[in-house]
């Protein structure tokens, strides 16, 4: 069977993206743990009413709304630094983790063959990871950000606001469900392959 390097464009791209994002994450974390400790802690707040003062606007143009606002705490205390990290790192970490899982999957598939029960299990695991872990990371970030906003304002918007900022990474959810279907197809193919080897 002429499988050749069927996995090739993907393995190369995933390796490159993995290396890049790991490097970028390492660099930002290093900066955050050194220079960043002396910088103000800044975070985005959504759905907190603000008014903008526009200038140099053409006549007839008005600023209708402030969609997002950035708040900066000038002298943050340690726990604010921790929350700042928690409001950005989970998505980055879980994305790097997803790329690593995909890379391991591709390596093993290249070694043992694509249509094997082991690859099917790997694809299934990867699908569940995208489906559950990435939305959970986004949820953690939303809670951390809202806690920071609550600490910067003399008003407690209540428990529900912790989830108001949660933006489910729906592409990860859809890709995850797609991978669960793909895992079934791979398992099916593995059986087909076993049949083929049995008949030859």
């Amino acid at each position, binding site marked *: 069977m002429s*499988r050749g390097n069927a996995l090739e464009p993907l393995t190369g*791209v995933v390796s490159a993206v993995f290396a890049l994002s790991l490097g970028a994450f390492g660099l930002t974390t290093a900066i955050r743990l050194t220079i960043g400790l002396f910088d103000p802690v800044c975070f985005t707040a959504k759905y907190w009413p*603000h008014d*903008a003062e526009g200038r140099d606007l053409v006549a*007839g143009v008005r600023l*209708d709304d402030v969609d*997002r*606002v950035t708040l900066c705490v000038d002298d943050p205390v340690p726990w604010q630094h921790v929350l700042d990290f928690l409001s950005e790192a989970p998505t980055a970490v879980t994305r790097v983790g997803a790329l690593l899982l995909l890379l391991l999957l591709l390596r093993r598939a290249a070694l043992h063959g694509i249509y094997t029960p082991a690859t099917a299990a790997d694809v299934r695991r990867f699908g569940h990871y995208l489906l559950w872990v990435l939305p959970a990371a986004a949820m953690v970030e939303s809670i951390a950000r809202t806690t920071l906003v609550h600490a910067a304002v003399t008003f407690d918007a209540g428990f529900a606001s912790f989830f108001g900022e949660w933006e489910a990474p729906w592409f990860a959810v*859809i890709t995850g469900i797609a991978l669960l*279907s793909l895992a079934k197809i791979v398992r099916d193919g593995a059986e087909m392959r076993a049949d083929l080897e049995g008949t030859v």
Partner: protein
Amino acid sequence: MLRPFTKVVRLMWSVAAVGFLLGVTTEVGNTVRDLCFSSAAIAGGFGARYLGKGALREGVANYPSELRYCLHDPGLPERVLGVLDGALTWFAYAVLFFLLMRLLERAASEGVHTAATADRLRRLGWFTLVAMPVVTSAEAVVRLLLLRQAVTFDVPLVEFLFDWSVPWWAVVTGVGLLTLGKIMRTSAEMRADLEGTV
């Protein structure tokens, strides 16, 4: 076998198609309402004032990171740009999910491991890889062109990069689909072998 996924894709296709049609009809039909759009490009240059309950604590600074502008009584070029903003991505998503839905339906009836499925996967992969980044960046440019009409000072065109979130998932998923297409072609040959030997 493709069961849970097909349902999700069909739902997403309906949502995207309805979103596209609704967006275009309301924008085209609207001749009275102001033309509004959001931009993150130069928002940081403006000041913001907290309007909510309570107040900002001492030592907390705030500035807007995304603003919504409204043009009063815009001309035809602005109206056209206003329709493009939003409609482009809705359209791209509708096409994406339509291609995916047709792929799944054909795969369910004709079989997964066929040369036709492999071709459709490859086409879908190229679409995801090229169309999604192009469309989202085009929309960011459209919003910047609108922003240029809203302020008296000159905003360089490259500022659209601040308003463009690159759809990295589309790049990775697109390459993944291309690979999957290759794999399906190999397995289609394998299946043909199997049928030949039986």
